[in-house]
């Protein structure tokens, strides 16, 4: 008897919707108008309950900008209502397209989101100012570990290995980064160590999930517990008594990029960040390109979708999976460096605080696609930062509900209420060569 027989069998493993209860479902075209309609009503409801008064200031640039954009001051109430009207218009367009059976282009939800957010902000920050640059720039910074983690998740799952251990990879990455950066004195050595630590967790995941066919979700969850225990233990036994020599790394500072950083609005948001962010841009681009445009990417996707077919044409399934998850682990581990080298200088107990699970949510919300997952991670980073900004200006929204948002959105996503998330076909299924 092996433990696996008591548990979900590998054939039903992974994170795919359960075939035993899922039936054919309609396309997503009908859901969009409903979602937009509900959101519009929600905004109108908020406005009706507490009509904002005064002006809302949107501050578009910081004082150090090369080109200074003027502040935009708008009356809160009328602006918010105007946005409701535009939202209604967009919803009507979505309904029209649904009725005429035309497709729903991507610009509808995107412009809806922007307009809705402007309306919401004018209400939430009535009589106050919103620093757009720090709101969005902070969102990018907060999203660093989420994007790295989500990319690692996407890569692993496209190769057919479910990675619940993103949280563990981030945490061990943060730990390794802090210790290595402290001992060597170079934060870049810390970043490299974070990647190695992430790959190490991936190696253990692979050993159990690929070589020994243990249920991948279980290995992932247990690995997270293992890493929490290990880092807490070492933190208390080793780091705390020797904090000076082992846990005081140099922080990664923001390095503005010369020309790009001077572009109004965009520059301060995207190009006056820490080097880790620029590394992030490169990794996103490389992964997205490699996964869809190279032979390597084709092979990775093949072993994730139909390992048997891949094996038949001579691709070494398990070797490909090992290589992919090691790379994925290294990428996720890089995200860990954010916590101990960028956010604060030094490691602390369980400092990732569930970011790995938000990254997992971004993988699913992003439909297992590197670009979409990156956008989802940015969105979740934005939600987190918005919460911080709003509670700082004393907005009426309870911050807990803002923090809940990424998780709720993901539940809606897997339940098929917002689009349909479908994982790679062989996700979570170990491959046994015959």
């Amino acid at each position, binding site marked *: 008897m092996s*433990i696996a027989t008591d548990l979900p069998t590998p054939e039903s493993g992974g994170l*795919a919707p*359960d075939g035993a*209860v899922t039936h054919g479902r309609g396309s997503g075209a009908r859901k969009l108008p409903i979602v937009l309609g509900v959101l519009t009503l929600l905004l109108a409801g908020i406005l009706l309950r507490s009509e904002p008064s005064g002006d809302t200031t949107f501050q578009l640039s910081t004082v150090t900008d090369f080109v200074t954009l003027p502040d935009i001051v708008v009356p809160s109430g009328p602006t918010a209502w105007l946005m409701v009207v535009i939202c209604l218009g967009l919803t009507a367009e979505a309904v029209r397209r649904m009725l005429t059976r035309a497709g729903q282009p991507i610009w509808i939800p995107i412009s809806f989101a922007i307009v809705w957010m402007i309306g919401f902000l004018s209400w939430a920050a009535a009589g106050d100012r919103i620093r757009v640059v720090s709101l969005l720039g902070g969102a990018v910074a907060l999203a660093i570990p989420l994007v790295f983690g989500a990319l690692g998740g996407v890569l692993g799952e496209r190769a057919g290995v479910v990675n619940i251990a993103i949280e563990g990879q981030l945490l061990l990455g943060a730990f390794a980064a802090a210790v290595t950066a402290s001992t060597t004195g170079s934060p870049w050595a810390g970043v490299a160590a974070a990647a190695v630590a992430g790959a190490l967790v991936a190696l253990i995941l692979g050993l159990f999930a690929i070589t*020994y066919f243990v249920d991948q979700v*279980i290995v992932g969850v247990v690995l997270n*517990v293992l890493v929490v225990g290990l880092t807490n233990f070492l933190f208390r036994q080793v780091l705390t008594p020797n904090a000076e020599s082992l846990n005081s790394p140099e922080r990664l500072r923001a390095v503005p990029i010369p020309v790009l950083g001077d572009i109004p609005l965009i520059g301060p948001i995207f190009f006056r960040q820490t080097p880790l962010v620029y590394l992030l841009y490169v990794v996103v681009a490389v992964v997205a390109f490699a996964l869809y445009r190279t032979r390597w990417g084709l092979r990775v996707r093949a072993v994730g979708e139909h390992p048997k077919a891949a094996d038949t044409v001579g691709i070494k399934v398990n070797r490909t999976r090992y290589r992919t998850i090691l790379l994925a682990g290294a990428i996720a581990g890089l995200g860990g460096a954010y916590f101990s080298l960028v956010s604060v200088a030094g490691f602390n107990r369980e400092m990732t605080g569930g970011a790995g699970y938000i990254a997992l949510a971004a993988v699913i919300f992003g439909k297992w696609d590197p670009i979409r997952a990156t956008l989802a991670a940015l969105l979740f980073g934005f939600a987190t930062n918005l919460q911080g900004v709003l509670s700082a200006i004393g907005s009426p929204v309870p911050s807990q509900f803002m923090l809940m948002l990424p*998780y709720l959105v993901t539940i809606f996503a897997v339940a098929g209420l917002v689009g349909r998330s479908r994982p790679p076909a062989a996700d979570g299924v170990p491959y046994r060569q015959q």
Partner: protein
Amino acid sequence: MNDTPKPQPEKPDAPVTDDEATRGATTTETTTEAPEPDPHDARAERSRSVLREIASGDVLAGVLAVFLAVFVGSVMIAATDDAVRETAGYITARPSDFFTAVWEAISGAYSAMFRGAVYNYNLTEPAQQWRPLTETFKFAGPLILGGLGVGLAFRAGLFNIGGRGQMLIAGGAAGWVGFNFDLPLVIHLPLAILVGMVAGALWGGIAGVLKARTGAHEVIVTIMLNYVAYYLLFWSLTKDWLLKTPGSVNPKSPPMKDSATLPKVLGDQFNLHLGFVIALVAVAVAWWLLNRSTLGYRIRAVGENPHAARASGIDVGRIYVVVMMIAGSLLGLAGINQVLGTVSSGVSLDLDAAIGFDAITVALLGRSRPLGILAAGLLFGAFKAGGFTMQTSENISVDLVLVVQSLIVLFLAAPPLVRAIFRLPAQEAK
């Protein structure tokens, strides 16, 4: 799976198709498929199968897994011990110093653990000497309850990672009843427990309903619901009309009324409260439910093969919902155990004390069987009780327990790995 004898036609009125379903799904379970089971035969068969399991080396693999995990733990203790590192500096000159230091670090840690978990031989009064054992039982209570919640879901093929959320919601609800009302004990305590269980069941049921209706994978939903529950409780703890102590700035509720606190079962000198008894009852109920009831039969059928179960007329979706509700109420009981028993000073955000995740390791070690979970819960409860003593007396972080615990589960999940490490012969095909 061939070691749980399935007493055959469990219900005379159970539809024949149910029977067909499992027979088709589990070809290994042919040993007890006799049409008219004689109770004596069944018992003999069971004891024989236990013997077979020991002999076949599965238990050996389990013991070796625990041994390996403890060994890794020992290495960690030795490697982080100051005396060991000091003596390692001159290991070539005086190796005996090094080995003495290693031995002292490791034996010190494990004897402290024993003193904290089972029997404290440093004390003289008998009642105090056995006090650690009652602490073990106290810690084991919620672990067993949580392990049952996770294990029961496993048997239906569901992976319930939502223990944390279910505990938080149930604990919050039970706590609200616990400090808000003035009622006699016989009404107040059961009411608080009931409200908490219902809240846990509803929270767990969300994942079940979403899985049944939309196919949404329960792993994702339960992970996300953990965080939703956390922020929901956080928010409730900031509102005076919900859980917050009026006039306080901390997110913490007022303490429980005495009439809603789980009474101490061995007198006031021991911390052991009624929660452990509830856990034992829950083990018995879960055992009966899984092995003797129609519902349990269907749960196992769905867990073995949902397609076959559906083909034979079992409403798979409904089973998912029911199982997740039962699992939620069991994990809810674990949360209630904390709020009304172990930490009755008020609901707080860390009321779950990571038991939601510990419960997964308990269920895995107990192989999703109620009696196995009882044993695993006691073992991990002992680890916890001993770990705190180890931390205070030997200054070794209690987090070591977490490492050993997760390593045990990892090694146990991959018997071939353990066999390879100890160079045991590969298991014969059954």
